[in-house]
């Protein structure tokens, strides 16, 4: 850290503003600021997808199929003449809605189960830890395939299935955090002060354990979007009526050589969003960890 950086740091510390350290570490990282801005654009686009998309994503125009980029169709048209830009934006909304819901569900369930197991210990912890192991040992795509076959396609089924596949990694991380933290002296003195167990868990352990789980959640958002696309690519995720990036790639495969935009546009969309979430995850880790320095990170 440079000399001026240290001075600024001390000033921020002395200013006694809560959260100033985060802000300071974010300010040191222009790359990360760009990532957060882009991510904000993506999130806004997802929320306002129907407003943003210039045309009906389902409107076919067989005379104007497989067009290149133009003023009318920014990203060209697909093999049925549908506007690719509108379809990508609507696909973004679908993916984000599913991914965010899934992550919220798995975050809540995973942290609750994981922290309970870690705090309780004994046979309860043993049973839960083995269950987590079983879920993690199962290849997630295979498990997802089995569940889709069982439940059928659809957005709600997709969320349910992804939650079942992913809660275990949150639970394992949270359990490990609580296990490491629960023998800390402040927990012992909280117990000695007569505080009830649930209070210690909620007010003392959770805040001290949650940060790595938040980082995992941010990174897992990208991962989940990738999984959704993978499943739809395999034709197992969502019904074909819903625009989705994976199924768009799959449908475009046949005409890939003559109309590459059919594959490139949704492919780039998947890559960009996944990359943004991964970078944001790393960024959240960096700015919440006082031990990291700006050099060598975004």
């Amino acid at each position, binding site marked *: 850290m440079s000399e001026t950086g240290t001075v600024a740091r001390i000033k921020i510390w002395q200013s006694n503003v809560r959260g100033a350290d985060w802000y300071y570490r974010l300010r040191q990282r222009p790359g990360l600021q760009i990532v957060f801005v882009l991510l904000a654009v993506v999130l806004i686009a997802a929320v306002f997808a129907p407003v943003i998309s210039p045309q009906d994503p389902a409107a076919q125009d067989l005379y104007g199929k497989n067009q290149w980029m133009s003023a009318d169709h920014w990203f060209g048209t697909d093999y049925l003449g549908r506007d690719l830009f509108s379809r990508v934006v609507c696909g973004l909304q679908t993916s984000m809605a599913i991914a965010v819901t899934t992550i919220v569900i798995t975050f809540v369930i995973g942290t609750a189960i994981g922290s309970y197991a870690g705090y309780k210990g004994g046979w309860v912890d043993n049973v839960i830890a083995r269950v987590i192991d079983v879920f993690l040992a199962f290849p997630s795509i295979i498990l997802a395939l089995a569940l889709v076959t069982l439940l059928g396609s659809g957005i709600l089924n997709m969320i349910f299935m992804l939650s079942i596949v992913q809660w275990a990694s949150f639970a394992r991380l949270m359990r490990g955090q609580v296990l490491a933290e629960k023998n800390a002296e*402040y927990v012992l003195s909280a117990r000695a*002060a*007569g*505080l009830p167990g649930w209070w210690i868990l909620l007010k003392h352990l959770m805040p001290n354990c949650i940060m790595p789980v938040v980082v995992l959640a941010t990174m897992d958002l990208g991962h989940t979007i990738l999984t959704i696309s993978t499943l739809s690519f395999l034709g197992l995720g969502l019904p074909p009526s819903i625009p989705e990036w994976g199924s768009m790639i799959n449908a475009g495969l046949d005409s890939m050589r003559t109309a590459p935009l059919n594959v490139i546009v949704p492919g780039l969309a998947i890559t960009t969003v996944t990359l943004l979430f991964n970078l944001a995850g790393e960024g959240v880790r960096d700015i919440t960890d006082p031990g990291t320095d700006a050099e060598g990170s975004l």
Partner: protein
Amino acid sequence: MNILEVSELNVAFPTRRGLVRASQNVNFSVKEGEICVLIGETGSGKSVIGQAVLHLLPQNARVSGSVRYAGEEILLISEQKFSRLRGHEISLIPQNPTGSLDPLMRCGQQVAEVLDVCGVPKEEHSSRTTSILSALSFSDPELVAASYPHELSGGMRQRLTTGIALAASPRLLVADEPTKGLDYAARKRTIEMFLNLKRRGTDSVLMITHDLELAEMIADQAGVLYSGELVEFGPAADVFSSPLHPYTKGLMAALPKNGMTPMPGMCPGLAQLPDGCYFHDRCPTPCEENHVHPLMHEVCGRQVRCSRC
């Protein structure tokens, strides 16, 4: 009246090297309004006694004996029953003030949550917290209450943990090495604080320490632990001025003001204790035969574990 009576307390931990007997047949009592100090070197089992009194032993500990608080057996009662005593009946001043404060919670909140447990209404929390903090000679209690632990100095944290322990005005205070890791000034303040407690005369304190000077200044009763056993217990003034057990004598001689004479040898490992007297190998005046384990017996109004006394 005895507020705490510990009798035949045994604590052992099963390990790969065998059973580690951290505390053996410990007998002592703390009278109401008195300060009882247990002295011992690292590994003599002194912290284990405090943890046993507070039900804070690790789950694998094997405990037997009896601990009576105000006449009521508390050693082997359920966690649920015991948790009612915590905070407002028995409380702990923890060993390490830095680690014992939640780094993510404001200091005032950490005092207030103890008040909450003891049924103090929410509206009174902030005023009570402020008065507790100012009683511990914080110059700006409101600022301290609004700070996070890392913003305080080591000595301030020490006083804060004491404030948390005293928040619900417990009848018995267990202080586990309150001067450990403190610099001279902070240590002096801590000693003054305990002297204040002593002058008030209402608090009963069980203190565990290896700080002999602190013990000498504040103790009413003093016990000396060696290899998990009490070797001497009695009125502090007598124990410090005319020690009877050779180990106590050695400790006193090792004090800077008494010439800093080191004691030769090491204490035996708690997993492989000899049959006879544990202190035999280091004793300056050893008995010829070391087959029989010496028992506590009364000499000049105190308990001593030495067959020579």
